[in-house]
């Protein structure tokens, strides 16, 4: 019966202390980018807010800026740690129409991967992890002198104190209240072919609050788990 289901679901979420991740690899054993590969790190698109008891999400500029900065730093460190060379790209500064189309196409591909590889439904025509932006990405490769591009996208909210209290009350009534969540996805795209060689969705747990440098480190590590870097 749905009452017990919703209580059970809420209880599970309350217990989830650890960050959960879910990686998808294009190949079972992908060819890792060679040392010194040039990786274009697209500045993370992250928006965080405060989820109040009434369900309004209040945008928090400071959290979003912190998270963006923290995650970006972690990604750059991870890239250099594997002796790759990174370049940074601020998507808001892009003017070239083709590049803009590719960035928007990536958003569509990323959301499709989220929808069909992580959602409730899968596509019969997508039995293997085989997603691409098409070889138009070569324009990005040339424009930014890069072999790969690493995109990060994050959305989330943190519950206010009032909301946390309300949620416990709601759960006791057998009603599930939408829980504040923070999630992000990253994708690594081979700019020569446009193929998404690696994709990961990470849902943050209490130990990986990306607003703090330590939490961001944990979260970014979860995001980049199994990245063929």
């Amino acid at each position, binding site marked *: 019966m749905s*009452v017990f289901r919703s209580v059970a679901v809420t209880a599970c979420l309350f217990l989830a202390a650890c960050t959960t991740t879910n990686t998808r690899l294009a190949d079972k054993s992908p060819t890792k980018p060679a040392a010194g590969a040039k990786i274009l790190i697209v500045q993370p698109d992250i928006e965080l807010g405060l989820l109040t008891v009434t369900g309004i999400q209040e945008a928090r500029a400071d959290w979003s800026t912190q998270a963006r900065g923290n995650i970006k730093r972690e990604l750059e460190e991870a890239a250099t740690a594997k002796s790759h060379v990174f370049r940074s790209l601020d998507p808001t500064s892009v003017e070239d129409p083709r590049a803009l189309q590719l960035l928007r196409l990536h*958003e*569509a591909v990323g959301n499709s991967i989220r929808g*069909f590889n992580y959602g409730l*439904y899968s596509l019969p*025509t*997508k039995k293997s992890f085989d997603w691409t932006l*098409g070889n138009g990405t070569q324009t990005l490769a040339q424009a930014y002198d890069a072999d790969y591009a690493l995109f990060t996208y994050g959305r989330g909210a943190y519950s206010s104190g009032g909301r946390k209290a309300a949620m416990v009350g709601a759960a006791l009534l057998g*009603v599930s209240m939408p829980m504040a969540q923070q999630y992000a996805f990253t994708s690594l795209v081979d700019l020569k072919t*446009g193929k998404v060689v690696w994709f990961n969705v990470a849902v943050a747990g209490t130990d990986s609050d990306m607003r703090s440098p330590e939490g961001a480190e944990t979260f970014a590590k979860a995001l980049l788990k199994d990245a063929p870097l």
Partner: protein
Amino acid sequence: MIRTNVVRLLAASALLMSLSACVSVTSAPAGPYKIGTATVTLGHEWSDISAIMFARPAKVRLLSMDGPLLNRLYVTDGLAPGEFMVKPAAKERPTPTYRAGMAPTELVEFVTDSVAALDYQRVETDNLRPAKVGSADGLRFDLKAKTKEGLDISGAAQVAEVKGKLYVVLFLAPSEHYFAAELPEVETVLGSVKVG
């Protein structure tokens, strides 16, 4: 009061959970694919995402390879006068309906206004040409549009009236890579429409 809201919520979530058990994405294998009185021939397997399409009219099916953000192949059964291709979100925002005796440009307008009702922007048509659906004279045309996010979309459409009903096939995909990738297959599908 509290009780009515909780009851409403529980009813809603029960409905959602039972709904999600029933609907699914199925395979549309290569070969004949039937939609009511119409049949098209698919050159390769497609995914039938009709069931998870939001507010779908019963006579419209949606096939895809990579999901609706990356390719959409709409195929309809014969729409009777008064019927729409896109379900309106509200009474105050009606969508185009088919009418008997429409002029060719009105048939094109029916499709472009339906595409606009799907929230595509700046919908334009080009290259209007004749097409044959069985013995019926149909129309074939190309489309250009943009998503709200600014992604360029290309389209290919075909309409034909058979025995007083309108049969539509419409393919929409991002201009970057995805439209060209399936266009040969789409041309085959367009040419394969059979009614009755």
